[in-house]
């Protein structure tokens, strides 16, 4: 059995937990992400496992001369298997709950409905992971939750009201989320390979199988791990393996865009403005937390309010031509203001555009406080995935600071984890020396 030494950085964010795996040369070979809404240990375990799955795919890729699109479909099929495994657990948990004392009056009927629901969820899952299909979210909770609610609405009636179904789901999902899936690649890759090969016959099937086997058999040896982020204090790591998220974001942004001098990170519950020097060393920073106004959660709240997915928010706001000025500073009041404005007949996209600008305006203050916006400027964190937020930022930067190169990346949500991994690599080097 071969083994491979890896270095890991974990960013325990308030909303999502991210992991980055580096090889000994410092190349990124795996990333993982999960929602943080569970026990921090478990989140860290899950995300590490996720990143390892991805790492093994990288190994497959490396073992294979011409992989083409096959890795993508292999990954998708593996995700499906993971999803189905979780779904099975969810169904089990729900049927346990349905048999509990709370539902004594309608246990049989409830179980029947849940059975129908489960079958339909499974069917939908398969189609969501079919070739070419798109998914609303990367997380089981969101996908399963969305499907469940949608199906339950149709199934609910007087006998089994919607609220009852929802309460069963809400209770069940919490338990399911707290259990890690171990060795997912090892256990599911064969099935996934089977599915992939059945989707389209491949000329390189034998080679692929060999590469997969090799990847599966490789032992991943953790040389060094560093944790960071909001929940870092709760990681079961010794102190020297924990770094402030500020430093990690600074270093991570520097690694992704070496000319970065200013970093803005907008996460779920905090916003950070960081200045770094030419070595990625933080020279000053400002941070906002404890209030959801102006953070990613603000957008999440608004999305819920409008019954939209997070990723739909930005594109809709981009359709606006006449932006509305939003007055509320509090997220909840912004929700109320939104309703009020909608009832006055203002357009959704215009209000949304105003909301995005409001968030970015808050970030601009923080940036100003941290020392302004210097060239180059890197925007990271989950909100950087939102095109309207990026647009609002570009506008405001241009209006107030003039020309600046603004970097964003699809992987920007991993910036903190990448920084942590780089710190881990330094520690490993020091240990070796």
């Amino acid at each position, binding site marked *: 059995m071969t083994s491979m030494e890896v270095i890991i950085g974990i960013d325990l964010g308030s909303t999502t937990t991210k992991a980055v795996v580096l090889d000994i040369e410092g190349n990124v070979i795996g990333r993982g992400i999960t929602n943080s809404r569970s026990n921090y240990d478990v989140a860290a375990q899950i995300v590490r496992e996720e990143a390892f799955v991805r790492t093994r795919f990288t190994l497959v890729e490396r073992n294979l001369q011409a992989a083409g699109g096959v890795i993508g479909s292999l990954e998708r099929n593996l995700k499906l298997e993971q999803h189905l495994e979780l779904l099975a657990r969810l169904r089990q948990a729900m049927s346990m709950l349905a048999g509990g004392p709370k539902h004594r009056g309608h246990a049989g009927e409830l179980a029947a409905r849940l059975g129908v629901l489960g079958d339909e969820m499974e069917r939908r899952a398969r189609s969501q992971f079919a070739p070419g299909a798109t998914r609303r979210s990367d997380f089981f909770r969101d996908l399963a939750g969305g499907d469940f609610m949608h199906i339950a609405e149709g199934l609910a009636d007087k006998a089994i009201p919607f609220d009852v179904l929802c309460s069963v789901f809400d209770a069940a999902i919490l338990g399911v989320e707290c259990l890690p899936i171990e060795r997912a690649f090892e256990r599911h890759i064969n099935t996934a390979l089977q599915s992939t090969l059945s989707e389209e016959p491949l000329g390189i099937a034998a080679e692929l199988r060999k590469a997969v086997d090799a990847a599966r058999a490789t032992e991943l040896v953790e040389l060094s791990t560093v944790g960071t982020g909001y929940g870092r204090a709760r990681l079961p790591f010794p102190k020297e393996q924990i770094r402030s998220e500020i430093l990690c974001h600074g270093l991570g942004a520097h690694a992704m865009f070496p000319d970065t001098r200013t970093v803005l990170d907008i996460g779920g519950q905090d916003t950070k403005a960081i200045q770094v020097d030419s070595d990625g060393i933080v020279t000053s920073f400002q941070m906002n937390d404890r209030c959801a106004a102006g953070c990613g959660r603000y957008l999440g709240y608004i999305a819920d309010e409008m019954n939209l997915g997070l990723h739909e928010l930005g594109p809709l706001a981009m359709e606006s031509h006449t932006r509305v000025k939003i007055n509320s500073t509090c997220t909840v009041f912004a*929700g109320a203001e939104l309703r009020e404005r909608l009832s006055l007949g203002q357009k959704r996209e215009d209000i949304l555009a105003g909301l995005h600008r409001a968030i970015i305006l808050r970030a601009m203050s923080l940036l100003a406080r941290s020392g302004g916006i210097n060239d180059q400027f890197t925007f990271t964190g989950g909100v950087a995935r939102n095109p309207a937020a990026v647009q609002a930022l570009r506008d405001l930067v241009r209006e107030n600071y003039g020309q600046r190169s603004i970097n964003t990346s699809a992987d920007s949500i991993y910036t903190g984890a990448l920084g942590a991994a780089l710190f881990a690599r330094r520690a490993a080097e020091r240990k070796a020396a």
Partner: protein
Amino acid sequence: MSELLTAGMDVGSSSVKTVIVANGTPLVMRTDRIRRRDLRKVIEESYDAALAGADLERKDIAYLATTGEGELVEFRRGHFYGMTTHARGAIFLMPEARAALDIGALHARAMKMDERSKVLSYRMTSQCASGSGQFLENVARYLGITLEDIGPLSCTASAPEGVSSICAVLAETDVINMVSRGIKTNDILKGIHLSMAGRYLKLLRSIGAEGTVAITGGLSADVGLAQAMRERIEIEKLDMNVLTDPRAIYAGAIGAALWGAFRHDVLSRRNVA
């Protein structure tokens, strides 16, 4: 003498409450949740449904008074502000009350009044929705329980868990953390209730409230909150006792209808004179 019929409508941020009062006694009381519907429509429907419930028509009502966001009601006769009406409603329902605490979806309002419901001093929360009804609603959603369950569950708590974040939005993360740490639902709710109670007591103290305090508005239905307030009053050794009434969620609308009757009298006397 024929009946004097007046109506009160309390247009809130989460629901519309309509009450019809005949000679000082409520005949019909109803709540309509707004739930992303067109507010004007909800208002009209609620009013007409309330009238239908008493076999009445709009023309039978001598005075329709609104409160809350009642400016939206074009067919009203007069408007009274929230604290005026809640004080009146509170005194009507709980005559011994000398202060009222109206807790709605977004704000809490404290008022101190005399036995004739004259408002002596008052204050409301602003700028931050922490500790409001919306906050509890969010928590309930993430705990997977219904609003009606909150109060009774909270009352069964044995080891309330303190909450650190009081942001109505971020509470969710806190709550989920607690759930995953194995904290029981009732203890979580109780912890939240205690922290809310602390804020409300501070609000009440800031206006110099003493004696009987009536809780009105949506959260008056939450027995856990009242319980938590009693406990904190005990601990802080305050000279207050808390009362609720099943009809207290309508206090604003009742108050408006009663003030409407008063104004009607004043105005008709003026006409006579």
